[in-house]
């Protein structure tokens, strides 16, 4: 038996997106993304470079949000100038949020409505266009709903597979939208035309629940795989080492 909570299952699913990445910068935006990246580093991807969310690369894996664990060790300095250089060099996998995402992985964090006079102005395009054209990009959606998984995003910030294909091979040669993790399941684009596919649903979630909360048709094949549970070792790392304050569960509730 395994008493893993949903946020811990998500943390493992997030860690899994970094499997095989080797010695690159894992940029994880948000609490569970940070937890997942740190879990990957402490288990199967020890060479990942992680940061404090500001300008320092961390030589160890301190708990998110502080706590009694080890003090952070600074192993490197990566101010924004270096982040941009590094990301254009491709040695990075970013896990971003998305206010809207469509079936080809086009992502919107710019605004809702008309760009000239939006109904809702969001944070802005940030680095999404450059990220998606230069290195691996994944998305974390804490609340899976039809408001987020939409037929068509209002503004394309992060570039999806249909837009990348239209650019042609030389311009989009580094485009790679790897995965989408939500509170309901894990999704990828490993289909012939790169439409979003259900990779797995989390334990306790039905495919019907996923479908009814998604605003477009998802590709899936029966039987539906279930997202793997954390191993006892991973649960120990999450609860004692990485997230002793239980911040991950707060992000899921929000």
């Amino acid at each position: 038996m395994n008493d893993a909570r949903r946020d811990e299952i998500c943390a493992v699913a997030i860690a899994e997106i970094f499997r095989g990445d080797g010695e690159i910068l894992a940029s994880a935006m948000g609490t569970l993304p940070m937890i997942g990246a740190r879990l990957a580093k402490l288990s199967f991807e020890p060479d990942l470079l992680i940061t404090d969310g500001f300008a320092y690369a961390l030589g160890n894996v301190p708990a998110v949000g502080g706590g009694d664990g080890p003090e952070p060790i600074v192993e490197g300095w990566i101010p924004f100038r270096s982040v941009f250089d590094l990301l254009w060099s491709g040695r990075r996998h970013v896990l971003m949020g998305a206010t809207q995402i469509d079936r080809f992985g086009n992502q919107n964090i710019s605004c809702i409505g008309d760009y000239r006079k939006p109904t809702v102005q969001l944070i802005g395009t940030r680095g999404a266009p450059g990220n998606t054209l230069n290195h691996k990009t994944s998305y974390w959606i804490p609340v899976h709903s039809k408001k987020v998984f939409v037929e068509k995003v209002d503004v394309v910030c992060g570039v999806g597979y249909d837009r990348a294909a239209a650019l042609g091979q030389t311009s989009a040669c580094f485009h790679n939208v790897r995965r989408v993790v939500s509170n309901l399941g894990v999704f990828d684009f490993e289909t012939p035309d790169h439409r979003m596919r259900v990779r797995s649903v989390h334990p306790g979630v039905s495919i019907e629940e996923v479908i009814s909360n998604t605003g477009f048709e998802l590709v899936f094949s029966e039987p539906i795989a279930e997202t793997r549970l954390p191993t006892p070792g991973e649960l120990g790392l999450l609860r004692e080492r990485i997230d002793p304050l239980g911040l991950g569960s707060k992000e899921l509730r929000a």
Partner: protein
Amino acid sequence: MDKRTTAEEAVREIRDGMTVGIGGWGSRRKPMSLVRALLRSSVKDLTLVAYGGPDVGLLCAAGKVKKVIYGFVSLDSIPLEPHFRKAREAGAIESVELDEGMLQWGLYAAALRLPFLPTRAGLGSDVMRFNPELKTVRSPYADGTELVAMPALALDVALVHMNRADAGGNAQYLGPDLYFDDLFCMAAKKRFVSCERIVETEALLKAGSFHTLRLNRTMVDGVIEAPNGAHFTECPPDYGRDESFQRDYAAAAKSSEAWGAFRERYLEVSEADYQRRVRERTNR
């Protein structure tokens, strides 16, 4: 050359319709005392270029902005800048929203006096659709890659805030990130640096290693001593962000009454009175 001046003198160089670049990042090490001086002036129709924070929000709220060129506008601990948001949702300002790296490239191109710099960032995204003035260019070499030709973002004036400077304009940052303050200065015709403290040149290396001397005096026209000048944004190691003040600033966007009260208390006063009121508030 002694380049010491005042915020008022610096702001006098900014005229209606000019393009002003503002250094820092989000709610971090922003030249807020210079922004406050700009708010007290009669200047209008500005084009702002920034990794935006409350600098952009305040100037939008004051109706001084015609256009903003930005990658994001955020208060960091409060992700969405409410005053900027309000201006956008009212359709009150023109918006050129770019990838953060495109913004850097535009400033760098201007700094190097190049018409553009090539990049992949922006290709395939709606940055190109909403900003049809942006063009692409094809590599003249065998690869033939099509790339965005990010045009130079030439600035009339740059405003940045550093930790220390000497009277000649050699300026030093002591925090973890320079952001793109050097590029803002190099991309501008007139460059003003406010700082926590103006020190003797020989004192600069006592505060930090030579790596921290990132603005040399060829990049600076005027130096303004402004203690706590980045308030309420952070300016490490001198001080952190005033989160409580920032929350009040953000909350003031909720109604015109709240904004009126905030403006009267903190913006329609001199910098000295502003700083006094901030101190009173903290001691309250």
